[in-house]
């Protein structure tokens, strides 16, 4: 049977690589796989491609013809310009806003991960009274829209005189905590309990188990959440607008919204450019964290 021979061949090739990994076997990527994925990727990229091309078109063109006319009427390619970008960057001070976005996003990404992973560890591996209830409370809070917290938090900040970046750092830490704990805890629950047990037998304290064992094994989940939290904070508009407001500390989202749009919605061509300018960093972050999504780090630990 072709299956068996194929299977044997695959096992042979796999023994040459690290056996512990469930890596993709390129020989298995048949036409269906390739075709389906190409189709999906095409669908996914067309909208963004449209926006990308439009951000280089002068306003008159963009208002009157579709972006695909660049392909059907190549003469219009001559109209392409970077003026939307230069104008947007200038009018909204996007250089400064960029630095602000980074300044806001980095702490707001790293700190919640650390705090949440401790809590997730406790919920997964420790036994204590009220554990289930406290965890369910965390999950149920996911449904609360952040906006209800704005006024009470603003008042609280006002009374202790907190201003500037720390206001949003703390806010994002608070708002993101529920999701972080939920995702991390559920991931940790899939880790083999035997590992923990053997560590305990070896006399490791909880802190050591957490630090040396669980954290490294949870890297895919930590990386996943890091991406989401970073994205959420980077693209956030309302929290930054309410707590930081317009001005020198405004991140890209706030700067684009406030400075490029007219009262009647004019200036949207600048917004397309601003939007793309803002996308560069998250894409880089995603690509950089890609390497954490390979390899099952749990295998081998069981044998070891």
């Amino acid at each position: 049977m072709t299956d068996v021979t194929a299977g044997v061949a695959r096992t042979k090739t796999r023994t040459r690589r690290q056996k512990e990994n469930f890596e993709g076997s390129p020989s298995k990527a048949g036409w269906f796989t390739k075709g389906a994925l190409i189709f999906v990727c095409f669908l996914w990229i067309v909208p963004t491609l449209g926006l990308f091309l439009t951000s280089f078109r002068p306003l008159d063109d963009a208002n009157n013809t579709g972006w695909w006319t660049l392909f059907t009427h190549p003469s219009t390619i001559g109209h392409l310009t970077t003026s939307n970008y230069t104008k947007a960057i200038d009018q909204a001070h996007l250089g400064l806003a960029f630095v602000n976005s980074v300044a806001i996003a980095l702490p707001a990404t790293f700190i919640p991960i650390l705090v949440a992973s401790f809590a997730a560890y406790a919920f997964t591996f420790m036994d204590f009274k009220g554990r289930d209830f406290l965890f369910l409370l965390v999950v149920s809070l996911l449904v609360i829209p952040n906006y209800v917290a704005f006024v009470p938090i603003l008042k609280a900040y006002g009374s202790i005189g907190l201003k500037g970046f720390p206001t949003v750092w703390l806010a994002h830490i608070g708002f993101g905590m529920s999701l972080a704990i939920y995702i991390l805890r559920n991931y940790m629950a899939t880790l083999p309990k035997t590992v923990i047990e053997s560590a305990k037998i070896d006399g490791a304290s909880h802190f050591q188990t957490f630090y040396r064992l669980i954290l490294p094994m949870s890297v895919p989940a930590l990386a996943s959440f890091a991406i989401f939290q970073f994205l959420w904070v980077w693209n956030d508009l309302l929290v930054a607008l309410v707590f930081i407001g317009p001005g020198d500390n405004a991140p890209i989202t706030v700067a684009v919204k406030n400075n490029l749009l007219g009262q009647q919605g004019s200036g949207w061509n600048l917004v397309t450019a601003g939007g793309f300018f803002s996308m560069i960093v998250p894409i880089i972050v995603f690509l950089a964290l890609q390497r954490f999504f390979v390899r099952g780090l749990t295998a081998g630990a069981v044998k070891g």
Partner: protein
Amino acid sequence: MGTKIVTTIITVLAGVGAALVLYWVLNRLAELLPGHWEDRIKPYLYILPAYLAITFYLIYPAVETVIDSLKDSSSTAWVGLDNYTHLLKTHDFQQTLFNTLLWMLIVPAVTVALGLGVAVLADRLKPKAESTAKTIVFLPMAISMVGAGTVWKFLYTYRPEGRSQIGLQNAIVTGLGGSPVPWLEQNEFHLNSLLLMVMLLWAQVGFSMVLLSAAIKGVPGDTIEAARIDGANERQIFASVVVPQIWGTVITVFITTLISVMKIFDIVYVMTNGNFNTNVLGNEFFNQLFTNFNNGAAASIVVMLMVATIPIMIYQVRHFRAEEAAA
């Protein structure tokens, strides 16, 4: 600007360092206690910082919200259940509830299915191709909601018959000889709501794909190998070896998507603001709070959302018990 960069770096290091130090200190404090007490206190210390954040930023506002839902629009006088009855009686609000339910039934399931599909298929490619495919599907998540609204504007825009179309969908329709259609106004069979859901799927499948891909990668190779040696084909391997081991993640993705769909608002607000029967609870909440400045009505919507998560909680509890039993 230079100082800002320096300050940021310092804060990141300081913040993370401080958190680590905090835990180390708490841990040491716990260790100082006699063993029996140490084991009992430690878990609470671990969850303490997280819970402080949650209490201040989520629980306290949630409690205030429940109280506000029983007060009037400027939160000065008690009105009891008036906010609820007033909303639930209006036909528009009932439509809104139905629409939200529609979103809840369709989007999470499709998100999981698509995310899983892409993750599984991409997994079979060479690493570079896999990375490219996943990046393309993930890309929309990098776009903010304002950007996404602009993106889809170039798909759904309508120009009257005879003028050149700038929206791709209408360009295709007119290219094939039809008349342009104002897509976002078509509420026969909730077509416009479905089109908005497509937007959300486009933006969010990346989320489910990333998590499910991580889970798939986390399945130990030996279990797959064992099944293969036993002669199972790919489909059987997937169904009986991979799926059970990633099921926890599937549930996580499903529930987080479900909950975020319940409060979805940006897409609807940016594209139609709920017109043409596309309104959902999240959008209604936003309008009540920021357009009507009616704190009471807005708060009561949040309470309704919280109540709606109870069935989800019940399911989660049962899932726990199952997990515990299996361990």
